[in-house]
Structures are given as C-alpha cells and as structure tokens.
C-alpha cells in the first residue's frame, strides 16, 4: 500500500513536469508559474522515487525477457 502511494505521488510529479509546459504552449499558464511547478515536481520526484524504482527494476530485471 505504501509503495502504491509512493508510486502515485511520483507519477504525479512527472505529470507536474510535463503538463504545465503544455498549458504554457496553449497560453493558459505563464512561463514563470511553469518553472515553479517544475521545481516542486522535481523535489517530489527525487523524494519519492528511490523508495520504489530500483526495487521494481531488480525484481523485474531478472524475469523479463525480450521476444522478437
């Protein structure tokens, strides 16, 4: 459960990185507001992701196979 919440917050941080830039492109947000949101999203990403990303990679890395 804890991992799911952490993952969710991490993905929200990624969304906070990309979505505001689209709003700037469409004229719905200022560039400065976008920069502030990107900074907050960065902090959230690096605060949450170490708790789950490498654990998932280790677990899946040994099992995953490439099929061509």
């Amino acid at each position: 459960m804890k991992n799911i919440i952490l993952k969710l917050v991490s993905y929200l941080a990624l969304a906070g990185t990309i979505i505001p830039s689209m709003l700037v492109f469409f004229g719905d947000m200022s560039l400065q507001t976008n920069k502030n949101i990107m900074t907050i999203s960065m902090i959230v990403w690096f605060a949450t992701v170490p708790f789950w990303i490498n654990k998932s990679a280790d677990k899946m890395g040994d099992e995953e196979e490439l099929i061509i």
Partner: protein
Amino acid sequence: MKKKGIVAHLEAVNEYEREPIPSSKLKGLKSFIGMYAGEHTAGTEFVIGPLFVAHGVAAFDLIVGLFVGNLLAVLSWGFLTAPIAVKTRMTLYFQLEKICGTSLVKFYNVINGVMFCFLAGSMIAVSATAVGIPFGLAMPSLSDMLPNSFGWVVAVFVIGAITTVVAMFGYQQVSKFANIAAPWMILIFLAAAIAVLPELGVHSISDFWAVANEKIWTGVPMQGQSQFTFWHVMFFAWFANMAMHIGMSDLSIFRYAKKWQYGFSSATGMFIGHYFAWLASGILYALFLQQSNNSAEFAPGVVAFNAAGIAGAVCVIIAGWTTANPTIYRAGLALQSVVPKWKTWKVTLITGLVTTIAACFPALVMKLLDFVAIYGFLLMPMGAVIFIDFHVLKRFGLSDFYAEKAGIKLNWAAGSAWIITLIVGLLLNKLMGIEVFFLGFPGWFVASAIYIIFSKFYQSKTNLKTAST
C-alpha cells in the same frame, strides 16, 4: 558507515574483468533500457543540440538526418556488438588481450582510458555551467579553450568528486542512479522545449515548421562555425557512439545481457536522448540566442535555467553526472587492464581525478562535436578487428584469439590494422579534405581488410602454441 566498512564494501565490488560473467549475474532487459535511456539523455545533449544550431543545420537536414543516423547506431549495437558480447561474455579489454596480445592492449587501453576521461570531463564541465549559476560564475564562450576563473575550477572539482565516488561503487550503483534520474530528465528536456515555443513565435503546431526554419535551424552558421549538412548530421548521429558500438566498447556492458537482442535497447538512448533531446536543446539555445542578441556565451546550464528555472539547471547537473558515471567506470576498466592487480575502486578514483582536471578546460565542450568524432574514429579499428576475429578469420582458415593461442604479446596483424587505418584517415583528412565526421565509414573497411590480409601472412609465419579450435 565506518571507514573500514567502506573499504571492505568497495573491495567486494567484483566486475568480472578477467573472466566470463557467470549466468547468475546476468541482467534483464530493464537494466539496459534504463542505463541507455539515462546515459544518452545526458549533459552533452545540452551541448550537441546547440552546436548543431551554431553550425547552421537546416531543419529538414536535422530532423531526417538524426532519424537515419540514430537508426543506424541502434542497428550497429544490435547486430555488431551485442551478439559477440553474449557469446564471449568478456570485457572489450580481456577480449582484445586474447586477440592482440598484452603489449598492444596496454597501449590501446591507455589511449581508450584517456579518451573516456576527456569525454566524462566534458560532461562534468557541462554540469559545472549549472552549478555556477547561483554564484554568478563567469561562463565560458564559444571561443574559450582554457579555464576562465578560479570559481569555474572549484565548481568542476565539486561535480567531479561526487561523480567519482558514485562510480567507485560499480555498475550496480550507476545503473540504479540512471534508473532514478532518467524518466524525469527526459521529461525536463521535452517540457522545457514545449514551454519556450511560444517565446519563439510558435502558438500552434502548424506554426512550428515555419519557425523551425526561420528562427531555430536556419541553415546559416554562426560566425566562426563551419556549415553542417544532412550528411554531417547523419554520420555524426551514427558515429557519436562509434567507439561503443562499432568499436565494441559496449561488449563490457552487453556481456551482462541474457540475449543478444538486448542490443536494440540502445534505441531508448538514441531516440530519446540523441533525437528528442538534441532537438529540444537546440530549441532552448535558439531562444537563448534570441533573448541575448546572439551572445557568444555558451553555457548549457544557463540556457536550461532560462527555459525551465531551477529544475532545468538541476537537470543539466544530473544529466552530466549520469553520463559521466558509466564513462568513468569504462575508463576505470580500460586502465585496470594495464594494472590488473589494482582494485577497481582505486583505479576509478585515479580515473576520476584525471577526468576532473580535464573538465577544467572549456575546449572539451566547445569542440565537442570534433572530439566525439575523433574519439570514435581513433578506437573504431579495434572494433573491426574484434568483429573480423569473431566472424571471419576461421572462414579463411585462420585462428581467432591468435595472441593467446600463439603465446605472443603483440599481434602485428591487429596492430598494423589499427595504425594503418589511422594513417589512412589522417591522409584522407589532410590531403583530400574529408572531414573527421565521415572517416569512420571507409575506415572500418580499411581496418577489416588489413587485419584479414596481414593475418594471412602473419599467422603462416608464426606457430600456434595450442591447436586452433
């Protein structure tokens, strides 16, 4: 952690430099996807994209040239490097030792290690342009070759020290860091470019092509820069990592792969890092030029900070760091084969110091395109030797791993292939004016042909210590 504990941990890092990787240590596809995506979405992408703008590449030439070149790079990893790596499961250096003999490999390794140090140095220098922002550091310009301030040297040493410490803990730690940083870095590149498009006059997708041609990739080089064409872009994209795919340096990485098809995982690095990130960083630089009235200052950290704020500057630092880590690791492997009794971490520590000193010189950044091309061409002939040794020699009735089987320290056929190829390249460059970006293609065939022909003569004159397999 206590000092004794740290040393014990470092000495326990075993990277299997002189033995095949055991099957229990093989890694899954995700490790390679993460590593390539992270490694090739790097600090240098913040330099290469802008340098294409400075060299006056036209929009069509860049977009199509990058696509074709990166596709060729992925195919090179997939069909040339990875199949040999999973068959032999050895590092480039150990394999070269068996083919070329210890004397030639030591010479090759020193050159290889030094080139890796310079490459990692350029990445650290890029990070330093971001670290210096809050301290008001004077940034280098396109014409700077030497360190321009004491503050610059301090910034470089801080980044270099952190990078070296992480690299000392081996492949696992590098891979883990790449996994953490890669998804976020990729989005920062993309987001920053999208957000600044309106500043350049792109207010809808239909505006993009006109603005791309008129304001970003105009086809007109900046003062003092040469003109780049479609062919420059295509060959640069293909050969930017020539030492690693055609040059076989990534045998050291893919020896951990369960299947040779993992070679195609390099597509994540090529099409995210060397396609979208180069386009994105070019867009950011075009905005910087517009806002600074075509300033000669060339500081990727400042460019990213202008576009994406603190997150942009941090991205430059981390992007440089993520790439410098595996590069220092590779350099460590190269130099360790010269001093095999030294522990990996000690070699990496010295490598990191050399890298950091090199990073103090902005020339590594300003001349990055030329350096990358020279570095690939310099190491490529040994990749051709490995390829021919693995796939072709036996078809001519010749022995593979000849130095090991004949018990010799120097295989003259391999040495001649390397040296003559470099001489031919130099002559093509100086006498016929063929730029360094194009030398790798004919060079590979020259090296291959010389290695086969010279092996035919050389092997008939020397006796094998053991029977050929």
